[in-house]
């Protein structure tokens, strides 16, 4: 297997081959490969519904693709398998690829479906955390070694919160949930598109939310990365994939009930329909793409992410934003 | 006071995978206080079983056993056993093996106080200088002698010995016979002694019990008419040779002695 480990070329995103497009019809050229794999960064959750919708409603097929959507185990591991070429495309947040590129991984972000961060601090309404300063004198649980944990000190600093008055509890995710639900801690760092609806359903009341994106801590999630070699060799396929996903997202957000039904059918053991519906509703709020296709990457968004990461010491050698992402595979009407 | 024992029609059946084995049937025997009783009999006739029942290590299937008149079901405090197989503890030196019963019954302090006696005993069986050796560094006969020392150090009221001299040469064996006689005379304990040597049995005993083959039962009890103390001359007494040949003939009538 050592051969498998040998990496592929290590080139920045901007130098990738461009897809061929028929100038008259706007149609993307023939796909170089039809069978590709997409590795999600976790087991099914609501935000992944559009990928399954694309499969079930034939959007991939429409673009001549056969995409195998596979569940995964965390962004880091997705990045590694994509970098290594085991998987063609993968889903991560924007944070890990930013680090990965610095580590020399041959990957590029080609789309991000949340142009606003789902990272939030939730709190019980009887001890609400509405602004960062509300954290003083409170305790907050966060997943150990998560992105949030890493940027949290900088967040406090930027917002002029006295860090010594905030009790930050680093625990594993399900322990974090238990601590918060059992009110052992006052607040919790979670994703609005994932845990929030679950918590609210469990507790039976609405939680107080504080979105980090409102404080210029906008770390986008749900980002598609591709292996550079793959993208360079198969630009049309990549473009067709994004085009299909554009339609799939649009369709999903317009037909949330149907998307929920599709999810429930695909994952009968893992889906709570009510929660998925809620998750999709929340996804709609942070997936705002006007006049650009779904997934279009805003450069300032990436730049902001890089600044936060650099400030938090997660990357040390920031390169040009273009080294990390490309919008080359989108077709603007 | 030492021990008088009464075995009442004891029977013993072993349950095995391949069916029952009747090892003993109606073994009836009384052992007077302070007496020396030897048991002889063909291999596999149940001698060890009798001894294990007396020791309380095996329950008789039928019959009962009385000590000083009282029913005896549990352990006998004042008893020491020399097993047919010398069960030495591999993780203890020779000296510690000998002192094992003392340590375990009376604690470390008493053990310390008994070291001299143990050394004395070991010396008397020819094992001086081997106190610090481990069992695996001994020869077969040496191990057996250690096991004998381990029994004697307990100052028992009842001493049960299962072929204790089997692995010893004639000289050592004779030496130990004299030692045993001297001790039983001094401390007045009761001895049950299993042996294959008819001469040994006659020489040592107040009573020789002859057992028959499976299922084991007692064919004859032969009280000794030999005078005490026994010594080198005892063997030359006509009673001695007489008793030896009596027992030999009992064996012969039972056994089959074929020549090539």
């Amino acid at each position, binding site marked *: *297997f050592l051969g*498998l*480990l040998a990496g592929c070329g290590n080139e920045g995103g901007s130098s990738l081959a461009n897809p061929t497009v028929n100038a008259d019809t706007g149609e993307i050229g023939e796909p170089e490969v039809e069978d590709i794999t997409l590795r999600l960064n976790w*087991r*099914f*959750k609501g935000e992944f519904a559009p990928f399954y919708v694309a499969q079930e409603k034939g959007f991939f097929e429409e673009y001549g693709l056969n995409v195998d959507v*596979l*569940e*995964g*185990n*965390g962004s*880091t*591991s997705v990045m*590694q*398998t994509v970098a*290594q070429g*085991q998987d063609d495309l993968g889903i991560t947040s924007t944070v890990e690829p930013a680090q990965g590129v610095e580590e020399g991984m041959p990957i590029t972000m080609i789309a991000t479906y949340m142009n606003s961060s789902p990272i939030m601090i939730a709190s019980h309404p009887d001890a609400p955390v509405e602004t960062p300063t509300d954290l003083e004198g409170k305790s907050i649980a966060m997943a150990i070694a998560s992105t949030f944990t890493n940027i949290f000190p900088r967040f406090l600093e930027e917002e002029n919160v006295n860090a010594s008055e905030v009790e930050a509890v680093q625990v594993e995710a*399900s322990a974090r*949930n*238990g601590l918060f*639900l*059992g009110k052992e801690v006052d607040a919790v760092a979670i994703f609005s598109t*994932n845990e929030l609806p*679950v*918590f609210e*359903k*469990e507790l039976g009341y609405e939680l107080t939310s504080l979105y980090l994106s409102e404080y210029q801590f906008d770390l986008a999630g749900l980002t598609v990365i591709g292996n550079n070699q793959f993208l360079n060799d198969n630009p049309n396929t990549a473009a067709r994939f994004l085009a299909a996903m554009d339609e799939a997202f649009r369709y999903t957000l317009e037909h949330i009930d149907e998307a929920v039904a599709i999810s429930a059918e695909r*994952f009968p*053991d*893992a889906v*709570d329909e009510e*929660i998925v519906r809620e998750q999709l509703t929340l996804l709609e709020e942070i997936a705002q793409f006007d006049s650009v296709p779904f997934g279009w990457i805003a450069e300032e968004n990436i730049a902001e992410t890089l600044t936060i990461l650099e400030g938090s010491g997660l990357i040390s050698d920031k390169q040009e934003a273009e080294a990390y992402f490309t919008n080359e595979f989108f077709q603007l009407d | 006071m030492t021990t008088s024992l009464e075995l009442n029609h004891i029977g013993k059946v*072993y*349950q095995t*995978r391949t069916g029952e084995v009747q090892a003993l049937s109606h073994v009836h025997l009384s052992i007077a206080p302070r007496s020396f009783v030897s048991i002889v009999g063909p291999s596999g006739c149940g001698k060890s079983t009798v001894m294990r029942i007396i020791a*309380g*290590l*095996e*329950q008789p299937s039928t019959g009962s056993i009385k000590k000083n008149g009282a029913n005896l*079901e*549990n*352990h006998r405090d004042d008893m020491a056993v020399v097993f047919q197989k010398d069960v030495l503890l591999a993780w203890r030196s020779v000296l510690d093996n000998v002192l094992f019963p003392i340590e375990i019954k009376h604690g470390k302090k008493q053990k310390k106080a008994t070291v001299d006696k143990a050394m004395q005993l070991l010396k008397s069986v020819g094992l001086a200088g081997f106190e610090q050796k481990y069992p*695996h560094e001994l020869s077969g006969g040496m191990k057996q002698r250690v096991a004998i020392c381990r029994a004697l150090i307990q100052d028992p009221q009842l001493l049960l010995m299962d072929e204790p001299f089997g692995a010893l040469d004639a000289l050592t064996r004779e030496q130990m016979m004299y030692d045993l006689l001297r001790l039983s005379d001094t401390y007045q304990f009761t001895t049950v002694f299993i042996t294959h040597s008819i001469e040994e049995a006659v020489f040592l005993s107040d009573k020789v019990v002859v057992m028959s083959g499976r299922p084991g039962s007692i064919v004859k009890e032969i009280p000794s008419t030999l005078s005490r103390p026994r010594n080198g001359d005892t063997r030359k007494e006509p009673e001695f040779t007489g008793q030896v040949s009596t027992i030999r003939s009992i064996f012969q009538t039972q056994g089959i002695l074929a020549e090539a």
Partner: protein
Amino acid sequence: MQSKTETTWMKQAKPKSVKRIQVPHSLWAGFTLIGFFLVWQLATMLLAIPQYLLPSPISIFTRVLSESQLLLSHALTTLAEVGLGFALSLSIGIPLAIAIVYSRYLANALYPILIAIQCIPMVSIAPILVIWFGYGLTTKILLACLISFFPIVINAVTGFRSLDKDMHDLGRSIGISEWKNFFYLRLPNALPHLFGGIKVGVTLAVVGAVVGEFVASERGLGYLQLTANARLDTPLVFATLFTLALIGMLLFGAVQLLERWIMPWYSANKAGSER
């Protein structure tokens, strides 16, 4: 086997009570377990422990029953991984143990590697395995194998080395190869140790498979637990854990039966005390 009574010193004092004690042994154990669950049930009720912290046994059992179909199908997946992984573990572990027993050099060279593998949590190794072997069955089998084979090797080595010198001499006096000596003497002599290792190993293999499912899977009890956890469906999480425990007991029981069947001579030679 039926000569049990002879082994027990304590029983001898009251040989008549033996029969009475014999029967309810396993029943009593059952009662104890039931008592344990009762206390748990009462605790959750009286202390009002919320369901997402610790569901009551009743809610777990009802969930186990209502989802039995689901649990069974996932359990079969897990069981298959455990079976394959453990088989692999045995077929690597035993030869490795033999190699270690016969070669001090190999012992010195292999032990550090084995210990290293053993000391690194499977949850750390799992992602690396995923990168090398993908998200498929292989990874889970390897995890079940890796986690279970240390106890097997260690116990096998101890067992193979525990042959009495006397017996070894017997083998040598017959003039057989060390190879046959191994099969006819060392191996049967090591069986009690081996079974000790197998009992520990087989239960660990369950853990390995489940950890594998945490990391890479779309089926199996580990997967089920993970997704239930994400939904905060704590009763289902516990129902999964319960099923896992059941699998473990089944495997352990099977090993114990096998042990009795292969070593009928063993207990008769040993003073197993209360048995």
